[in-house]
């Protein structure tokens, strides 16, 4: 089936099988491998990306459902050499250990701040409930998101 998806600002036309998952389409057809697949059961959040500006778990969305939509992946955040403020906050606050959950965490965190620009620490912890960090590095992840919110970005 032919689909047309705007990915990181660029219109992409593809012909795919209807059963293709969004994450598979992004990683394998478009070769944007910054998004990771963790659990593949919509539990861990590693595959989070933005669909029309909101975080979704792309292992549980069909690529055909994203036809005509705007998709942003971790690759679409930086402007040239300048990182997105959330990426910068994760770097400054050591919001990652092994890094596997990081792309999903960053995408979920940006979506969270869009819906709640001034979250409390509890808001951040609840807001990131859909993203698991197996290094258990939650403390600095939460600090990173709070720092980004405080910087008002």
């Amino acid at each position, binding site marked *: 089936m032919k689909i047309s998806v705007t990915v990181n600002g660029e219109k992409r036309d593809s012909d795919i099988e209807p059963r293709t998952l969004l994450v598979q389409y992004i990683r394998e057809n478009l070769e944007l491998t910054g998004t990771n697949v963790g659990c593949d059961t919509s539990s861990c959040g590693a595959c989070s990306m933005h669909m029309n500006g909101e975080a979704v*778990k792309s292992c*549980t969305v*069909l690529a055909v*459902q994203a036809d005509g939509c705007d998709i942003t992946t971790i690759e679409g955040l930086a402007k040239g050499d300048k990182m997105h403020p959330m990426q910068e906050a994760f770097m400054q606050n050591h919001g990652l250990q092994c890094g596997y959950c990081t792309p999903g965490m960053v995408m*979920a965190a940006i979506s*969270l701040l869009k819906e709640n620009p001034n979250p409390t620490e509890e808001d951040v912890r609840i807001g990131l*409930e859909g993203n698991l960090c197996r290094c258990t590095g939650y403390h600095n992840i939460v600090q990173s998101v709070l720092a980004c919110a405080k910087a008002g970005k």
Partner: protein
Amino acid sequence: MIPAAFDYKRAGSAAEAISLVSEYGDDAKFLAGGHSLLPLMKLRLAAPGVLVDIGRLTDLSYIRDAGDHIAIGALTRHMDVEKSPVLAQHVPLLACAAGHVGDPQVRHRGTIGGSIAHADPASDLPATTLALGATYVVQGASGTREIAAKDFYKGFLESALRPDEMLTEIRVPKMHGAGWSFQKFNRRAQDWAIVGVAAWRRGSESGVGLVNMGSTPVLASSVASAIASGASVADAAQKASAEAEPQSDLNATSDYRKHLASVLVRRALDEASK
């Protein structure tokens, strides 16, 4: 995991969607947000030959004040139910329960109609709308009919919906200031409830729905009867499992679930009685 191959049809209207499933019969399934169906398809627990995508029927995404009740379009997403000012005012229990479904990413995609039509006893919204005495509006090839929530759930993932019928609207009576509580007991924040309780109370009137306490969502009528006849919350809560036949699984035995239900019903009714 990739689902088994299927044909994909995108419906432009409810009527077209119904005509498509009528054409393909049992082999077709509606796809709304896909957050119940796609996980099953990835595990090959479901393998429909045709998916009829109704996810773009935006005219079925609404929350309206309809006088004595709030009318919610079946394709309204959990996030929109959770954040609705109309529901916050008139049916706060449902808005709260919607905020407990999955996690924000799931709530951005999953829909109230999808969750109810899927009829999973472990889902939060079937039991909550059951407790609230909701009515479901379904549309089929031969017209529209209304099904009371208490008559809707027939078995595990089985509902009164006929194969060619689509759930289009959920009508939830206004709570008129009744006290309420939603209790969800789980191991991790985003998990399904091991046991969940949705409860409201206004004096001697009450409604209690149980999540994951059997093969269907459960209306705990014995608890409501006990409250109506003047029993204390603690005594009424002892009847929590009267209508339930909870299963044993990795998370809990049947007996553990029964105990948990009585504890959570007590907590919920205490909160709803304040």
